[in-house]
């Protein structure tokens, strides 16, 4: 006879977890059946209060989500859409609480039928505090994230399936669901297709060229400054880090002025002696070159600082051993320095690529994505994110902006997934750490 059966017989009751769980379909009833009255009232109170407070809100919300409003000029589809999404989020939370209510009733009942004695209210509170503490810690952040990040993203996704543009915008007009029409338009309407592929290809070229250049320059400088024969290292490093330390918008606007075609310093002071006058901001190719130059200027310093830190952590012994074995300088760099540096900073370098992929500040502040291109809705240096900004805030093409955003999101998520897999393979159990 083992201990469990002894307890069962001692308890000798027919308390059923199943009945408790079934009773809890009405929240709290199962807990009362378990004779945990306070808890039962609490569960019932929470769920009841939820429906009393939000009942009307949810009703309108779900109705709005389906219809997007019915009275032209009265119903604001955007508000209804947001209310609908909030309703969905609230409902998910309510279902979560409801689920906890069911599981709790079942668990308590199981314990009671195993002969467990009811705890006092005070013990119950202590228990709840222990279990609830992490939730209390997460709650404020979760609230912020839901409303500032998740809700807007869901709203954006929803907009992609509506006809919200400059000709059809609330509160004057009603929105309606149009299915995947907008997605098809990107590929079937010539102006969208042309713009999409030209912007996408420039975004890819820009990301690869600018980021690779700045990483190479940063690495090169970090290696040569790290040379034993170089003096005044501290001073040199401080100056080389300056571009990272100066606020980005200040440097970008300064460069925008310096590259100005008519009165900028580049044409008037640096190139004037050579008799050159280059249309930096009005010719697509020259603008692209200027933008890549500016980004290399802005970004190499961070890479330089990062690599300098890594280089100093590589042991001298490696190099000495390699020198004894007769390895050339290139071989030493190729087989010792490079693997070390890349291994230690791979995630940050990938972040550098994704950062440039979405480098709105530079593109927009330097030349507002210009110069304009005939026959497409984006300028010649617009990358996807700045194109989305223009579609949203300049031409009020909300639905198309949302469609492009979703495509951008899929690309970025793909890169991130790749990065995540790599980090996982570098380190065992990254997320569990």
């Amino acid at each position, binding site marked *: 006879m083992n201990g469990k059966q002894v307890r069962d017989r001692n308890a000798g009751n027919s308390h059923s977890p199943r009945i408790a769980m079934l009773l809890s379909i009405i929240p709290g009833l199962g807990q009362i059946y378990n004779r945990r009255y306070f808890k039962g009232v609490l569960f019932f109170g929470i769920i009841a209060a939820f429906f009393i407070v939000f009942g009307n809100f949810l009703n309108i919300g779900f109705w709005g989500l389906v219809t997007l409003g019915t009275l032209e000029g009265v119903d604001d589809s955007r508000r209804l859409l947001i209310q609908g999404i909030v309703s969905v989020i609230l409902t998910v939370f309510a279902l979560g609480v409801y689920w906890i209510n069911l599981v709790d009733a079942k668990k308590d009942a199981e314990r009671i039928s195993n002969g467990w004695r009811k705890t006092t209210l005070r013990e119950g509170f202590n228990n709840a505090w222990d279990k609830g503490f992490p939730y209390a*810690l997460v709650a404020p*952040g979760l609230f912020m*994230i839901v409303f500032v990040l998740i809700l*807007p993203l869901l709203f954006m996704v929803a907009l992609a399936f509506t006809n919200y543009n400059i000709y059809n915008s609330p509160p004057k007009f009603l929105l309606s669901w149009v299915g995947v029409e907008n997605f098809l338009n990107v590929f079937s309407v010539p102006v969208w297709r042309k713009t999409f592929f030209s912007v996408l290809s420039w975004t890819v070229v820009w990301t690869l060229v600018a980021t690779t250049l700045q990483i190479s320059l940063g690495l090169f400088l970090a290696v040569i400054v790290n040379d034993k024969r170089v003096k005044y290292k501290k001073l040199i490093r401080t100056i080389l880090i300056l571009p990272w330390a*100066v606020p*980005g*918008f200040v440097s970008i*606007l300064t460069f925008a002025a310096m590259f100005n075609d008519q009165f900028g310093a580049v044409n008037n002071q640096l190139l004037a002696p050579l008799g050159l006058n280059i249309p930096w901001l009005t010719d697509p190719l020259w603008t692209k070159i200027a933008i890549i130059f500016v980004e290399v200027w802005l970004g190499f310093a961070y890479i330089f*600082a990062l690599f300098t*830190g890594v280089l100093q952590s590589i042991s001298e012994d490696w190099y000495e051993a390699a020198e004894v074995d007769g390895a050339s300088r290139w071989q030493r760099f190729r087989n010792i320095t490079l693997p070390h540096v890349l291994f230690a900073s791979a995630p940050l370098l990938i972040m550098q690529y994704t950062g440039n992929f979405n480098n709105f500040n530079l593109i927009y502040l330097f030349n507002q994505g210009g110069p304009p291109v005939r026959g497409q809705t984006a300028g010649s240096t617009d990358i996807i994110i700045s194109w989305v900004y223009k579609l949203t805030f300049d031409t009020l093409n909300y639905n198309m902006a949302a469609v492009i955003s979703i495509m951008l999101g899929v690309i970025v998520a793909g890169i991130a997934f790749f990065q995540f897999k790599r980090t996982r393979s570098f380190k065992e159990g990254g997320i569990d750490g």
Partner: protein
Amino acid sequence: MSGKLKSKLEVAGIYLVIFVMFLVIVYPLIWVFGISLNPGTSMYSATIIPKNASFEHYRWLFTNEDSNYLLWYKNTLIVASAKTVLSLAVTLFIAYAFSRYHFVGRKNGLYVLMLIKIFPVLMGMVAIYILLSLVGLLDSLVGLILVYVGTSIPTHAFLVKGFFDTIPRDLDEAAKIDGAGHVRVFVQIILPLAVPIIAVVALFNFMAPFMDFLLPRIVIRSPENYTLALGLFNLVNQEFGQNFTRFAAGSILIAVPIATVFLFFQRYLISGLTAGASKG
């Protein structure tokens, strides 16, 4: 003998490269400083070495009635301080929960955080705009602060969690055996040990509003609520080149303190970044 010569030539080459980089780095910075000393507001006639240099634009920023510079500075300080305090508190709570407790939804929560971290904030701008106008927080510093706090959580939470993970669990276990509660362990054991990462994250939080112009541009409408970056951008953008000397002066006044703080803390920034990234 030739080896020595070769070495000398190499060192000379290295110094030459560094010297060229110095010129490329410093020229724009000196140029903008020179422009800020030019009399007259137009950029057309301004030169890097002004003929009769003066600090009139600096004086204009602080004393002229048309200048909102001090107001912008005050707004930015308010936003930066509030953002730092709120964001730090929320981030520390979340990171601590994810680092030390096992609770329902922990793993999924981490995946969600990681996923959100990679989406550019800009993607949700329309919704944030409409949402703020619904609750009456559009064109207000409070709205701006709330959006800043929300958007900063995912990235910083990972940095801090990475750091918390490196603090040995034995410490909190020992304190718990001695009878310390949840709050005490967190406040008296963990927080003092996490001061380096707290400093890094606080610095990131505080400096962001000085450098960011996108969010204020979307949230803020009226000039008396501008932050520095937005105000200066509008100064130079209204009539291009017309106010450039004033913009230059205003920029110098932000760039100098920020760059100083940055250079001072850069070693910690680097170690914080690498520590957080290798964990993320």
